[in-house]
Each structure stands twice: as structure tokens, then as C-alpha cells.
């Protein structure tokens, strides 16, 4: 499309070379290790990458080979991706917390000859499945702890491989291979998390990644000097675009936390200027703040609530550039000095210029909270097949109920059944070894089905998403059934972690609810409610009362929308266990697998529609180490207040 804009910069290695030339001495990567932030400049990072790329050649990597990468976010693993590209290979990042068989499937499907693994945990997983993988040749590991005694005939440490690479004198071959990379060559292959069926390998070209990175960086004025914290799974397309695509395009610095547990502290130390988080991270932060405020002294509480109220009123106005009076500005300044500033600092968000959330709908009060703090938090809508961006919210047009306007270069159309289609320079090349799925997702003109149902709001041009297109159904009465819409409303309550609504082809809707242990546990503690397990707490009558009240409130708001009034929840139960990816009930990105939940808990659904007031159930659970166990529980089923106004009027 805009070949001139990216002329000569047809690959990530080409962007890297440009960054070395322009920002050679600036920090490119940082990682906290041994309690100190270690940093690498662009020039240093490039040298590390070259050494590893040459190392891959010494192992016999051929042009077009797949190199899988798995582990937590670390600079060395990002380098491995670029090194793979420099060696003419295609990086395939995998989810670090995936189970062995999921990794086996991906490795087998892509035919990876080499794997770069973060540590012993990852190596062990691959060792378990090695017999099934005939093409797998060599494992390169980063952290050698615990691996000394392993058979090293097909295993090398990252540092040793770099050393071998430096000594090999293969730099000419590396330069030749990376210079040959064109805009249509594969840049990366990412496995989709697979809410349905087997994961699919989405192939993105250099053009996809670079065009998208360029457009999105310009949209938000990202530049060298910005800071991001790389803490989301490397196998997720968003992280690839933020931490590699945009970082390489703009030359900003990627910071890796010390360990997943220290993310909050590290966030605070780095103070990123560009921050991305799924709604659950913001939810968790807000829940923590609220819990701590509950425990604070009376004066502090008063101060917090008074000035947050001012923030809520004036903060968003200032962000959106709307007129504010001098008095209001003064008040906000005071609030900022007393409450908002220190709070932002504690959360590590003092310097955030652009913040994004995506993946799931975000609750309005969470959204408003961050906007009140003066954080430019926006929503975007995207998917792997689009190289992330489909729509995003421009500065000054931020709302919690839309996902924004089409990103630069993206065209949208809405099909008859409400499904959203898009076409853009970021549209993926193909699903690897799956022509059938490619054809059914992407038509000849390049339009891609998102699988989501939505509509474009008149006047503003913003896209609003209702639900997954395949989940939008009809109830027995013919009324529209949009479970996600209702579930999201439920999940906006801090007490509710997850909700699954049923009702397709039924007379009325019912729901499963997961309580949030942090929020409800804290509430229980403050109210002197003793409990010994998640299960016991989930069935406590007072917890059920609270949830019942939440459901009634949601029903009231659902009833307000004429089209969706049929989706009110008549009966519900609180589940005795958290839905979990290890049990297959959720994807690794924590999206509910509706079908599996329906099958697994069929007895509970029958009970919901069978009019019982409680049900005894046995559930199989999988522990983290793969062992299985069984939990039994008797769950209470409750009726919720339903708004009948609409019905009466209809009659």
C-alpha cells in the first residue's frame, strides 16, 4: 500500500539496523535482574542478536525454518525472535504456561527444528514430548539452572550458542539472509488461543507487522524515549506488536519485569509512558486500591472519596480538552496534589501518556476511575488475524461502551446478521497448513470475518460490539439472546470474577457465577464471616444474597434495552470452583469456553431449568502438575428478581 513510507525498511532486522544507526547509544531493553535494572542499548542488543543469529546457523538453520520460543518476557527471548528473522527463519512464540500437549501440538504443526526455552520448566515440558516430535533437532535454553545434568547432545545454552555464533564467522551469510527479507516474507507465526477447536497458526508478513506498527505508532504519536513494560504473554499478538513491531519502528525502550510476581513493583519503578493491559489488570489494581482504602483511617478515607469525586467530575473533561472553569482547574490541581498524584505514583501510572485496554469489555466504573486519575485510557478492538488493530479510540473521543473508530488503513463493514468484517494492510497471510479455515475466514477481496456481532453508532462512527456472532442466538420466544452482553454487566461487579449465561432456545436465561476470592474474601474478613475454602465461601448465604442483588440490578439495566430485555437472568447459581484453563474451561487468555462449560456442567444447567433449589455435583479438577482430582459440592440455586415491565406492556 504505502510502499514509499516504509521503503527499504521491509523487515524487523532492517528496522533494527536503522535504530542502531539513529539511537545506537539509547536504551533499547531493560530487565530487572538481581534487584537492579540491567540495560542494553540498541547497539548492544544488535550485537547480541547477531551472535545468536550466527549461532542458529551453526546449528544448521535453513531459510524458512520455524524456531519456537517459549518463556516469560525477557530481552534475550525477544532477541531470539529477531535473531531467527536475521537467520532467515520464522519465530513462533508459544505461551509459556501452556501444557505439554498444547506445546506438542504447536511444535508438531509448525515443524519447528529449534526451540529457544526460557528455563528448566519449559525444557522439561519439551523433553516430555520429544519422542512425538521427529523434526525437533535442538533446544536452546536461557537459564541453565537445574539443567547441568541433562543430556546435552541436542541442547545448548543460549550463551554458548552465541559464543559459537561469534566464532563461526558467519556474519556475511547473516547479512545476506536478512537483506533478502522482503515485505511479503513471513515475519512471525502466532498461535491463536483457540476458543473453539485446535489453535491455528496465524502467519503475518513483514508488511502486516511493519505497516501496522507504523500506522498505530503515528496514531498515538509514539516515539523514541517512550517506555513500555513487557509483561503480557510473548505469544500474544499484542505483545509482538508493542514489544517488537512498534518498539522497532519507533525505537522506544522495552522493559521486562524481574518475575511475574514483581510486575506491580517493576511497573512503579519504570513508570511506563505507553501502557497496555487487559481489563482484568485494571480491575485487579482498582480492587486492591479499594480494599486498602477500606482499611485506611477515617480521615484518609474522607480525603480519598472527596477528591476522587472531584477527579471523576473534572478529570475526563480535561483529558478530552473540553472547557473547564478556572475554579474547576484549581480544584483538580488540589485533588492531584493530595490524592490523585500519589495514587498514580503508587500504581506506577504517573507517566502514562497513552494507555490501552482490550480483549474484553471493561466496566464503566473501572474505566471512569482511571480517567478520573487523568490517565488517557482508551479501548481498542482487534485480533491476531488483523495484526491487532481493527478499531481504536482517538484521543478526546474515549467512552466505555464503544471500541472506537477504524484504525488507520482499516475498512469496516457489517453483514446482515450483524457480524463485523474488516479489510486492512494488517490482514494476515494465511492459517498455516489450513487452507480451509483461511478460505472460510478471509474472502477473495481480503475481507475478514471477526466472528463478533456489532454495529456502527450513528453520528460518531464508533463501533459497538455486542457479542460473539456465533453466541448471539434466539431464545425459544424468538427474542435476541446475547450472553456476553449480560455477562459483562455482571462482571463489572468487583465480587464477580466470571459469569456464564445460558438461554439459547430456552424459555428464560440462567447463569453460572464465579465469585472473586480477593474481593469477597476481604469482605468476609471485615464482616467476621469464617470460611475454610473457596467452595464454602461461594455457598455462604450472605454471599448468595449479595450476588442475588447484583443479578437483580443487572436485570434492571438489561430490561432497559428493548432488544435485549429477554436476556434477564431468572435463576442462577454460584459455582464451587473457579473456571480454569487447566481444566479446559477457559482459554489461556482467560476467555470462557462456553461449549465445554455447557458439557461439563450439564447437570447444573438441568437443575437450573428443572426448578430445584439445590443440586449435588461432582467435578473433576486438574492440578497444576497434571494430576486429577474430584471435588464434590451441594450448590444452592436461587431465583433473581426480573423486571416484568416490558412483558406487561407487550401483553
Amino acid at each position, binding site marked *: 500500500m504505502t510502499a514509499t513510507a516504509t521503503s527499504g525498511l521491509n523487515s524487523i532486522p532492517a528496522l533494527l539496523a536503522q535504530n542502531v544507526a539513529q539511537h545506537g547509544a539509547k536504551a533499547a531493553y531493560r530487565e530487572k535482574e*538481581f*534487584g537492579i535494572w540491567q540495560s542494553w542499548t540498541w547497539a548492544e542488543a544488535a550485537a547480541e542478536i547477531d551472535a545468536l543469529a550466527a549461532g542458529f546457523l551453526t546449528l544448521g538453520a535453513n531459510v524458512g525454518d520455524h524456531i519456537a520460543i517459549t518463556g516469560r518476557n525477557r530481552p534475550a527471548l525477544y532477541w531470539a525472535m529477531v535473531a531467527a528473522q536475521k537467520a532467515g527463519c520464522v519465530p513462533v512464540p508459544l505461551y509459556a504456561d501452556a501444557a505439554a500437549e498444547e506445546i506438542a501440538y504447536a511444535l508438531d504443526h509448525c515443524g519447528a527444528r529449534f526451540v529457544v526455552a526460557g528455563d528448566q520448566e519449559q525444557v522439561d515440558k519439551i523433553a516430555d514430548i520429544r519422542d512425538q516430535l521427529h523434526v525437533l533437532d535442538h533446544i536452546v535454553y536461557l537459564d541453565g*539452572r537445574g539443567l*547441568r*545434568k541433562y543430556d546435552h547432545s541436542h541442547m545448548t545454552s543460549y550463551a554458548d550458542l552465541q559464543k559459537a555464533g561469534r566464532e563461526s564467522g558467519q556474519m556475511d551469510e547473516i547479512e545476506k539472509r536478512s537483506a533478502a527479507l522482503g515485505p511479503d516474507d513471513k515475519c512471525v507465526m502466532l498461535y491463536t488461543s483457540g476458543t473453539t477447536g485446535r489453535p491455528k497458526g496465524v502467519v503475518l508478513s513483514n508488511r502486516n507487522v511493519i505497516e501496522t506498527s507504523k500506522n498505530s505508532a503515528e496514531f498515538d504519536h509514539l516515539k523514541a524515549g517512550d517506555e513500555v513494560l513487557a509483561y503480557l504473554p510473548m505469544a500474544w499478538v499484542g505483545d509482538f506488536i508493542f514489544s517488537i513491531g512498534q518498539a522497532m519502528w519507533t525505537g522506544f525502550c522495552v522493559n521486562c519485569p*524481574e*518475575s511475574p510476581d514483581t510486575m506491580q*513493583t517493576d511497573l512503579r519503578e519504570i513508570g511506563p509512558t505507553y501502557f497496555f493491559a487487559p481489563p482484568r489488570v485494571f480491575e485487579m489494581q482498582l480492587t486492591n486500591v479499594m480494599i486498602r482504602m477500606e482499611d485506611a483511617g477515617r480521615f484518609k478515607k474522607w480525603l480519598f472519596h472527596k477528591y476522587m469525586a472531584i477527579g471523576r467530575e473534572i478529570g475526563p473533561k480535561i483529558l478530552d480538552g473540553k472547557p473547564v472553569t478556572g475554579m474547576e482547574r484549581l480544584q483538580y490541581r488540589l485533588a492531584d496534589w493530595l490524592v490523585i498524584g500519589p495514587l498514580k505514583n503508587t500504581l506506577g501510572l504517573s507517566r502514562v501518556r497513552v494507555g490501552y485496554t482490550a480483549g474484553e469489555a471493561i466496566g464503566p466504573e473501572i474505566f471512569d476511575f482511571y480517567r478520573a486519575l487523568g490517565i488517557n485510557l482508551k479501548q481498542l478492538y482487534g485480533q491476531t488475524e488483523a495484526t491487532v488493530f481493527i478499531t481504536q479510540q482517538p484521543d478526546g473521543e474515549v467512552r466505555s461502551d464503544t471500541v472506537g473508530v477504524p484504525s488507520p488503513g482499516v475498512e469496516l463493514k457489517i453483514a446482515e446478521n450483524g457480524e463485523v468484517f474488516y479489510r486492512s494492510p494488517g490482514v494476515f497471510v494465511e492459517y498455516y497448513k489450513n487452507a480451509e479455515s483461511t478460505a472460510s475466514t478471509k474472502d477473495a477481496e481480503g475481507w475478514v470475518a471477526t466472528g463478533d456481532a456489532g454495529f456502527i453508532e450513528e453520528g460518531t462512527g464508533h463501533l459497538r460490539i455486542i457479542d460473539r456472532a456465533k453466541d448471539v442466538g434466539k431464545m425459544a420466544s424468538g427474542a435476541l439472546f446475547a450472553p456476553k452482553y449480560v455477562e459483562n454487566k455482571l462482571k463489572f461487579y468487583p465480587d464477580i470474577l466470571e459469569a456464564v449465561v445460558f438461554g439459547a432456545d430456552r424459555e428464560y436465561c440462567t447463569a453460572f457465577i464465579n465469585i472473586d476470592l480477593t474481593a469477597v474474601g476481604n469482605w468476609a474478613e471485615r464482616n467476621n464471616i469464617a470460611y475454610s475454602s473457596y467452595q464454602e465461601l461461594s455457598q455462604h448465604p450472605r454471599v448468595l444474597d449479595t450476588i442475588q442483588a447484583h443479578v437483580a440490578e443487572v436485570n434492571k439495566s438489561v430490561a432497559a434495552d428493548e432488544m435485549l430485555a429477554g436476556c434477564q437472568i431468572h435463576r442462577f447459581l454460584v459455582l464451587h470452583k473457579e473456571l480454569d484453563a487447566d481444566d479446559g474451561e477457559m482459554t489461556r487468555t482467560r476467555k470462557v469456553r462456553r461449549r465445554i462449560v455447557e458439557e461439563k456442567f450439564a447437570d447444573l444447567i438441568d437443575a437450573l431449568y428443572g426448578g430445584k433449589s439445590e443440586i449435588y455435583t461432582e467435578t473433576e479438577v486438574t492440578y497444576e502438575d497434571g494430576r486429577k482430582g474430584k471435588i464434590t459440592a451441594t450448590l444452592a440455586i436461587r431465583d433473581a428478581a426480573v423486571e416484568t415491565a416490558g412483558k406487561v406492556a407487550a401483553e
Partner: protein
Amino acid sequence: MKDTVEPYTTPDGRTIGGVLMDMRNITLRFGGVEAIKDISLNIREGEIRAIIGPNGAGKSSMLNVISGFYNPQEGEVWFRGEKRPPMKPYQVARLGIARTFQNIALFEGMTVLDNVMTGRLTHMKSNMLAQAIWRGKAEQEEVANREVVEKIIDFLEIQAIRKTPVGRLPYGLKKRVELARALAAEPKLLLLDEPMAGMNVEEKEDMSRFILDVNDEFGTTIALIEHDMGVVMDLSDRVVVMDYGRKIGDGTPDEVRNNEQVIDAYLGVAHD
């Protein structure tokens, strides 16, 4: 029981060297009570050595003799080929013997980092005044010590609680911090007194992994007391069994498991 002191390699590839600590005919009395009765046992370089036995068998007393907290009335303690005269615990610590305690003994008000730093005390050479002024050598020393400590924090995966006061931590983590402090001394011999007492299964598994990793990565010789037989049999190279202050068995886990006297002691056969 293996009497050879030839170095050998274990099935999992670790090298067990010569005798590091040799306890010869130790007898320890408290007034008229004989806590340890004429026990000899050795600990070889690089091995994980367990001491087991019913309550009151004298296990902790044995550990306290090794660590210099008690001086036995009879017998000799040989460490690294030299006979050790009666010593104070801090002197023993300087020899390269560190320990953890059955009841956690950390500084509750101090952070994890500061607690672990105290483990470096035996490696601090500069005097108190220099440390107070904190210039030159004292500063360099602190930096070097901090580096060692940070490696241990990384090793035991306690980065997230580095700045947390110990008093706020759950029990399982406190045990891990105590292990970190002991490791900070870079001991030749590490004594663990019931490292897994009161832990749940997951915490025990974590702790077992750390013990094996410490032994493997740092080559630290480990002597431990533990009640969980599954753990002991899985972890250790050799096991000493004590009962009423006597040694009733010594050998590999398999040998000990089939030892008649040991079975009696654990099943509770009446003593004449």
C-alpha cells in the same frame, strides 16, 4: 553401610567425595540424661544426609553438636580432616557451617533482604566504624555481599518479597527466607532442622526442589532432619536413624527401610 571413602557418582550424576564431617563416638549428657549415646556418623562431601528418628531420639541435639551449640562430653568432631576443638557457634559458622531452625528464627521486623544480608556477616571484614561511615572498603564489601544475596534471592524465587518485612510473610515463605539466609553464608555444610515441618504438599514440593537444587548447583553438603519419610527417602543419599539417643541404622534409604530395628522403632515395639 558404605565404609569406602572413595569418591563415587550417584545415579543422577552427582559426585560424592570424601568425608567432610566425622563425628566419632559422641556422647552428650544433660545432667543425668544421655541425649546422645556413643554415636559415630560421617557426612561426605556433596551428599544429602538425613537424620531421622521418633520424637526425643536426639536428632536436634545431634545437629546442635555439629553446629557447635552443644559441646559433647565425650567423643571427637572432625571437620575437613581436622579435629575441631570445642567452639562457640559463631566460630563454627566461620568454618563454613550454616543452619536453619526448627522454629523459625528470623528478625521479624526487618525486610527479607536485610534478613538475608545478615547471613553475610561472617564475610564482612571491615570494622564497625568503617561500616558506619560506609566509605571505601566497607561500601565495596556491601556491594559485593549484596550481589551474592541477590543471586540467592533469584535462586529461591523470592524477588517479589525482597522488601517485605518478614513478620508479614506466611509460614512457608519464612522457611524459604531462612534457607536463603543460611545460603548467604556460602556454607560448606548446611544443616536443616525440619525444613518442611508444618508445610502443605505444594510447599513441601517447592522446598524439596530447592534443597536438591542447592545441593546440585552450589555443591553444598546438606544434613537434614525431617519427619516426612517420603521426602527423606526421595531426597537423601544416606540416612541415619536414631532412637533413644542411639544409632539404630545407617545406610542408603533402601537399606534403612528394610532394617529390622528401624521398623521396630517406628512401629513402636515395647522396650524391655
